């Protein structure tokens, strides 16, 4: 401890922590071993619809690229090897760090979770980020085996619009845009049926979609519980928990885990159990952290400061909505809205609607939403300041970050920025960032 801080609240480890880790490990093992029992492996972006692929059987296993790239980033020596391999192959240092980690892992034929890289049978990317549209095209090229790459274009314009009168954003779904995405999904299903030689099963789609809607909303419900003082969860722990939604939103196991986690977090709130027992201040952050240096979030605790999460960990793969009075709330699932799904088109429609309403998808269309959303989070989660990561490793989520910082500062919100890279340790200066955090804590009066 940097200071002699008063222990204000009881604290205890999360009971379901180990289970979350097990599920994550099992996910990668299941993917790697899928071919042993004749199953299907596929890979694509985490901001996608795993439930659609689930219609091809119970033995279909995804590998989502971003969390895989982040897992590599966490292992700095392996990440350095992957980046060197990617750069040797001619990929420049300024493209997405996750992409370089993934490609490097492929080029080295080394899977971060052991053994050779388990090549997928096909790729399916939902294209919202400009650079990620090329991710799997290159992955397939590196393999050189002519595996198909399906790309669903999701650039339909903003889902949320700004109301000048109220000063808030509101949901304004573009029905033609949603239909455009749904039509692509129908077309992809037909093509993949032919490629795999497997019939598509709508019942499996409905079941997986039900899980996907639930997983996309239970985590936001858990996140809402972190408004409590003391905060029952802290950012560093949340990074290990939110990620399940980035691995496979259609998983029944993950849904069961999130329900269990929600009950436990609610219990922690009821009993006043704190993530940081000395909590006297709260901050939030914005986007991906430098994964190899998560200790910066622990450093905050030296000041009795808890990071309650981020716009990123709250919403990356999840579904939020905005109330009439401009509050962020978990989006209601079709079931919660009394909608019964009985046919493929309706199911795909609601899945597309969920995906396109994702707050991060919208950052690519209107980055003013993120600035507004962070201000709302700051207010709703009772924060004292915001940490902004000028993440050189991600073009998409960093879009507009400097303007967002100014917007927050102009609204009287204490903001600190630090420069780094989510996946490339060479671009993060740990000592300087720690110094900057120290300065920020002092400006918040935490001495």
């Amino acid at each position: 401890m940097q200071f002699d801080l008063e222990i204000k609240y009881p604290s205890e480890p999360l009971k379901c922590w180990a289970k979350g880790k097990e599920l994550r490990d099992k996910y990668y093992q299941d993917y790697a071993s899928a071919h042993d029992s004749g199953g299907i492996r596929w890979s694509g972006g985490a901001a996608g619809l795993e439930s659609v692929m689930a219609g091809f059987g119970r033995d279909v296993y995804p590998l989502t690229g971003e969390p895989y790239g982040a897992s590599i980033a966490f292992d700095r020596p392996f990440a350095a090897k992957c980046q060197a391999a990617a750069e040797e192959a001619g990929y420049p240092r300024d493209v997405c760090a996750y992409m370089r980690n993934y490609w490097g892992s492929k080029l080295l034929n080394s899977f971060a979770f052991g053994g050779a890289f388990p090549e997928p049978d096909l790729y399916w990317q939902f294209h919202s980020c400009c650079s990620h549209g090329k991710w799997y095209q290159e992955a397939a090229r590196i393999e050189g085996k002519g595996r198909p790459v399906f790309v669903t274009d999701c650039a339909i314009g903003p889902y949320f619009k700004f109301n000048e009168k109220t000063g808030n954003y509101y949901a304004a779904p573009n029905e033609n845009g949603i239909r455009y995405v749904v039509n692509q999904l129908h077309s992809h299903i037909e093509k993949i049926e032919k490629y795999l030689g497997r019939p598509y099963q709508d019942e499996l789609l409905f079941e997986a979609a039900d899980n996907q809607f639930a997983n996309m909303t239970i985590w936001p419900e858990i996140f809402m519980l972190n408004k409590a003082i003391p905060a029952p969860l802290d950012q560093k722990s949340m990074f290990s928990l939110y990620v399940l939604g980035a691995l496979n939103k259609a998983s029944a196991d993950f849904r069961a885990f999130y329900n269990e986690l929600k009950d436990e977090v609610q219990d922690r709130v009821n009993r006043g159990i704190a993530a940081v027992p000395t909590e006297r201040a709260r901050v939030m952050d914005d986007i991906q952290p430098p994964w190899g240096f998560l200790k910066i979030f622990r450093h905050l605790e030296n000041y009795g400061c808890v990071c309650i999460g981020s716009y990123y960990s709250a919403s990356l793969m999840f579904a939020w909505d905005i109330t009439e009075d401009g509050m962020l709330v978990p989006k209601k699932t079709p079931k919660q809205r009394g909608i019964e799904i009985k046919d493929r088109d309706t199911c795909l429609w609601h899945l597309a609607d969920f995906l396109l309403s994702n707050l991060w998808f919208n950052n690519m269309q209107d980055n003013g939403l993120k600035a507004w959303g962070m201000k709302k989070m700051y207010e709703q989660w009772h924060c004292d300041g915001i940490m902004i990561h000028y993440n050189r490793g991600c073009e998409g989520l960093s879009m507009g970050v400097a303007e967002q910082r100014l917007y927050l500062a102009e609204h009287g919100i204490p903001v600190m920025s630090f420069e780094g890279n989510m996946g490339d340790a060479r671009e993060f200066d740990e000592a300087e960032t720690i110094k900057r955090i120290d300065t920020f804590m002092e400006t918040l009066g935490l001495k």
Partner: protein
Amino acid sequence: MITVGVDVGAKKVKVVVLKDNQIVAKGSGLMEMDREKSIRDAFEDTLKTNGFKEKEIDYILATGAGAKSAVFAAKDTTLVTSIARGVHAIDPSIITIIDIGANDAMAIKCDGTGKVVDFAVNEKCAAGAGSFVEAMARAMEVSLEDFVTASLQSTKSIPINAQCVIFAESEVVSLIHEETARNDICRAVHDAMAGRISSMARRVRVEAPVTVTGGVAYNEGMLDSLKKELGMDFVRMENPEYIAAYGAALLAVDTLQKA
């Protein structure tokens, strides 16, 4: 009550001694390879030169990039806090502070009560800090003093586009080969640096009154370029490189008064 503020910069150690809130001594020393020894030497020389003994001192607070190496200090604090405290004590009306040291450049926004409300610091690169000018003076084979004088005599603005001190040096060499007037090259260096510092300062929305602190505040050529770039004049401070050490010494007083 005697307190000491020690500002451990990348190039120099600055020491300020306060007695009953008044500056009674100040001194400095160069930072050499043995950091702890450099800091202690500067500290002891300042005390000795001004007739103080270490045992007379009630509290020592360190600040700056190498504050942790001031092992004899009771505590350390950040540069932003120290500079803001020092400036506020001298002129409470100051809203924006631009501090330019050898290694770091920063912009600090205060709220009129001395409280820091926003700050921005250069990232990883010294192209907007004092070392940049020194490197360019070396490339031009002139003393820093002559470099500043030449810059102020220039009437022509030439862009230097490189972000990096190494590439900028190449650009300077190219300008020399093109037989560009020395005065204009010197000014170009200051203009380039002022551009970088201004863009960083604008992140906190520069508002008058503004002051410039740190060792580079002695560089009139740099101040001239910065003034043109920001379109505003600055409140001048005496001994601008000692402001952080002074602020640290004042914070030491605050600590003792709270105890």
